[in-house]
């Protein structure tokens, strides 16, 4: 178990040491976002603009025009909502090479409650042209994708989560932006997931397997550009899809998959995630359960698609 924000802290330090143009722009929460070591070792590549996220986005745009690769580091709620206008206007529209690296995605700032939980962050980002969105699910894929983001020329939104999550991949696994990863192969139902809920989806696959149902599990770590080939294959080869995400069911992976399915004119999709309601303070997995996201419920939903029961 290791947290994705730690993957950020480790990888950004490595990247910063390799490339003096890699900058971190903090908004007074470097401690939680794991950038303190970067700040200590690479002070020349570090800024802290204080509690002024809008300004951080603008400052980073300015840095990028001067050839820097700034990673704005904040919480997902602020990195998406508070900076929304600035990201669109100053970063996406001019297609500047700024990375928005956010910890505390989804419901993971569980105790902080609704104001700090980001249940709409990558939905917002998905609506912005030129934006690439990465939602890694474990420590190793996270590090690999941060490196890929750094090499990618253009705006990238990275969503990390707060608490330790199980290892799913090996250190040597490499990840490519825009290419979904098949975690489990199966032909009865497809589960498409990303982020910290991946471990629940894996458990669901095990539950289904014990009932004789084989699920194909896709790690959709790149929410945009969507790997439409992988989604199309799932719909054409299987036709039954469950999407699982720690995000509002509106505008996230579920909606993106529905767009593809509806466009194909076939298949059925069930979206699992935050049920278009605000979060609250509470333990993370309880909050997910309140929104109907547990290993058991994922398995039940998938099975009902296979058996045709509702």
């Amino acid at each position, binding site marked *: 178990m290791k947290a994705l924000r730690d993957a950020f802290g480790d990888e950004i330090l490595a990247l910063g040491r390799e490339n003096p143009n890699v900058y971190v722009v903090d908004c007074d929460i470097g401690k939680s976002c794991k950038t303190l070591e970067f700040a200590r070792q690479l002070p020349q590549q570090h800024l802290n603009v204080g509690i002024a996220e809008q300004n951080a986005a603008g400052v980073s745009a300015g840095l990028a025009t001067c050839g820097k690769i700034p990673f704005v580091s904040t919480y997902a709620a602020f990195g998406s909502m508070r900076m929304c206008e600035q990201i669109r206007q100053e970063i996406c529209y001019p297609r500047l090479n700024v990375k928005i690296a956010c910890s505390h995605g989804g419901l993971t700032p569980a105790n902080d409650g609704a104001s700090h939980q980001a249940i709409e962050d990558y*939905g917002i980002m998905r*609506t912005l042209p030129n934006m690439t969105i990465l939602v890694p699910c474990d420590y190793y894929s996270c590090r690999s994708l941060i490196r890929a983001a750094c090499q990618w020329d253009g705006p990238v939104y990275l969503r990390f989560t707060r608490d330790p999550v199980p290892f799913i991949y090996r250190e040597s696994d490499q990840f490519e932006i825009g290419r979904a990863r098949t975690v489990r192969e199966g032909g009865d139902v497809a589960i498409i997931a990303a982020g910290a809920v991946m471990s629940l989806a894996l458990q669901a696959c095990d539950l289904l397997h014990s009932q004789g149902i084989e699920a194909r599990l896709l790690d959709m770590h790149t929410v945009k550009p969507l790997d439409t080939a992988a989604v199309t294959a799932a719909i054409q080869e299987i036709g039954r899809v469950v999407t699982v995400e720690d995000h509002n069911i509106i505008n996230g992976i579920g909606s993106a998959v529905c767009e593809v399915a509806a466009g194909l004119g076939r298949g*059925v999709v069930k979206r699992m995630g935050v049920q278009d309601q605000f979060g609250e303070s509470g333990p993370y997995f309880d909050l997910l359960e309140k929104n109907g996201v547990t290993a058991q419920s994922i398995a039940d939903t998938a099975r009902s698609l296979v058996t045709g029961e509702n």
Partner: protein
Amino acid sequence: MLDNMDMKTALGETLAEEMRKNSSLVLVGADLMGANGTWPLHGEFPDRVINVGIAEANMVGVAAGLAACGKLPVCDTFAAFMARRDYDQVFISVAYAGLNVKLIGSDPGVAAEMNGGTHMSFEDVALMRTIPTMTVVEPCDCAQLRQAVKAMLEVKGPVYLRLYRKKPHKIYEDGCRFSLGRADCLTQGRDATVIAAGMMVWNALQAAEQLNQEGIHLRVLNMHTIKPLDKAAIILAAQETGAIVTAENANYFNGLGSAVAEVIAENSLSVPFQRVGVRDQFGEVGGTSYLMERFQLTASDIAQAVKSCLKRRQIH
């Protein structure tokens, strides 16, 4: 009377009528009240029209405070700023706080015309749709706007109204019926359905006329309320007409088209479906008709999408 009116004038008149009836109604703007037709009300209601200057985030915060004290604030600015610049404020200070604040965003999509990409809002509907408890409305002409404004003021909770502020094509008669969350069926065809909102309703009707001449009879649904979505009308349309095309003056990610796609995929409707909308691009300067061509939003584009759906239906 309404035939020759700008929508911003209709907005100003309607709000003035309502302000005379309801003393708690206040207007809060951010230096664009002139553009949106609300600044003239300052004369009659000097104490109830507040211009906070160029500080949109502050505008929404101020409105939240007013609402917390029992006022009924209506905020206005350009759609681009209302959705993006104020997003965190709308989310937390208004929606999460459960405050009764109404938001009007003008110059949606290509209507921003000469202001170009920075001001062209293709994402406002999507952003607002992701906020729990938010109602999203996009009326298509002056008569419908008047009813929509009244409905917006009556319903409790945050509402985002997407306003075309110039002179629209007339579709409805004054005093028309309007029901939040219930789509209007404008033509009764059975061959395919076009679901449109705002400026695109006119284009959809034009497409219906074009196709009519070719013997294809369209059903046009005016989905003026994008959230909560009229799912029943969509399911019925799929069952009765067997093909669905959506038409929106917005990014085709996350807006009306995506909302309809969600209903189709989740209900396993398995009908040919296509989205007409801006294909994940930023705007640019130009006149409305030019931009509609540029972003493939015209009546012909809609007709084309309908035909390709019909072709797919034959193949399957």
